């Protein structure tokens, strides 16, 4: 069990956004998390990365309890994520966006940062090399020097993934990576995700798009905060409860 969510519950006042959710993700898998709007998918991501704290439940990563860890230390442990509305460092160019995300080794301290010592310059050069690699992986090498806020939507989404990859994650949480994209861009993102998986990164992805479902090994369906189904994409497609949740009851032929 790589990532294990046990009995996770989050209440916002009277609203139960996530209710007693159990999800497990094995190493090397691509797991899809789907469900109608307001099902609590993004809240689940925010709970895993401690952007909000759960009311109840436990989150284990690599057999380590990360439920109440701070966001930044969860990121350091190897949980990378993107956001649905995709905030970026808008005034940084693509290269800076990616290189800022790199974990500078603990051997350099504030003194090295301040005086830009030889050790720090060496680290920075290494980081720039790796940044170029990641930018090439997601196909943004042509816009490397463009400010992130001036990029088109598709490239911004790609940049979000590149930034999450830069922290050298063991698991990547993608929040609607292909929402609002044209078919070409969807194609390139799917390719990039497959490449990422080939490098041994586990992926947990929120998506509505069927194209994305097809590359998932397993799909978890949520509705009103609860898990209502789990299985292979084909099983989920044929599941009546899932169809009811998406389209409402009584309309399915």
């Amino acid at each position, binding site marked *: 069990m790589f990532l294990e969510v046990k009995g996770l519950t989050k209440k916002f006042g009277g609203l139960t956004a996530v209710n007693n959710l159990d999800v497990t993700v094995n190493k090397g898998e691509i797991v899809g998390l789907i469900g109608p709007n307001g099902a609590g998918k993004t809240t689940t991501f925010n709970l895993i990365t401690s952007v909000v704290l759960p009311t109840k439940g436990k989150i284990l990563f690599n057999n380590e309890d990360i439920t109440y860890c701070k966001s930044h230390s969860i990121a350091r442990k190897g949980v990378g994520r993107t956001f649905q509305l995709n905030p*970026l460092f808008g005034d940084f160019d693509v290269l800076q966006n990616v290189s800022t995300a790199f974990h500078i080794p603990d051997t350099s301290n504030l003194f090295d940062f301040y005086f830009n010592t030889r050790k720090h310059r060496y680290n920075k050069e290494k980081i720039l090399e790796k940044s170029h690699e990641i930018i090439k992986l997601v196909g943004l090498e042509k816009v490397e020097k463009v400010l992130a806020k001036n990029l088109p939507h598709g490239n911004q989404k790609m940049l979000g993934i590149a930034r999450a990859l830069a922290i050298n994650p063991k698991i990547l949480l993608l929040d609607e990576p292909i929402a609002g994209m044209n078919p070409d861009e969807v194609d390139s993102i799917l390719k990039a995700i497959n490449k990422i998986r080939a490098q041994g990164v586990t992926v947990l992805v929120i998506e509505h798009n069927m194209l994305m479902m097809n590359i998932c090994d397993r799909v978890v369906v949520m509705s009103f905060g609860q898990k209502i189904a789990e299985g292979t994409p084909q099983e989920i497609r044929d599941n009546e409860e899932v169809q009811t949740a998406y389209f409402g009851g009584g309309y399915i032929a």
Partner: protein
Amino acid sequence: MTADNHKFLADKGSILKVCLTASLIIFLFLLPLFVGSPYYLHILLLTFIYTVASISLRTITISGQFPLAHAAFMGIGAYFSALAAKFWGWPPLLCILLSAFATMFIGMLVGYLFSRLRTLYYAIGSLFFGIGVIYIIYAFPCTGGYTGMMGIPRLFQSADKLPYYYFFLIVAVFSIAALYRFEHSHIGTILKAISQSHLVASSIGINEVWYRVLVNGVGCFFVGLIGAGYAHYNMAMSPTAFDFMATLWLCMYVLIGGITSFAGPIIGTFILFLLPEFVRGLQIYAPYFSAFLLFIVIFFMPKGLVSLPNLLKDYFLKRKEGGGISNVSGS
């Protein structure tokens, strides 16, 4: 890294900047040879003090938060140093250094307390901290309360302005260089990242709270240092010098000069401080003049007075090209 240095020197803009800065510093060092009047030295010296204060305020704002208690931190430095020198009899130079560290410590503490607040809420929180500091100063009898504090030991034995002039010039040059290095180091990059999106910053493993506490500490260190120096120069001071109005003036220097650029607060302070001196007869109109300038800056140069040369260049280029579509990016 030699390649980078080479590029740095080959850049025409940076050569110009380095030359300008160097000549300005040399000019200021030689200025007392030509300006003998103690009054002008006094004005220049105050300009140095407020330049350091406004530039350290801008350093805190690169983390995306705008504190409204900066003059209060100056007051903390000034009163700490004055009390230590007056009642414990420590040498003023030691007091100034110690009070800079004390201000840094208090700044970090306040930064930590307010680390959950952002933007407007942070501004309001720090505003009330600033007001609170003034009332604490009022409350203690040893600080002299409303009437102010007298008989603070002076830094140098003579009453001459010249040693003070050089002391504050050196402190200002040192502080500005240190803060410049701070902003252009990796720490500055991280702070700018936090200011653009704290969510993304923590999702890539940046400890937002620690860096915000750090930048508060650094900003307060320099304002405490210069505030303590001010106390030992003036020998008398009252809490009104560090109240909310004083903070607002610091904000004015930063905003009119240009908050997006490092040189902004320096230019803002020099213009707002020195310009009224040239038209002495109109000095009572200085606040109106400043407010008018603020309006002009907000409407026509959102990046501050420091962006004026670029704006003029763009304007004339456009005129020369015959009013085609502007290729000057907005914002």
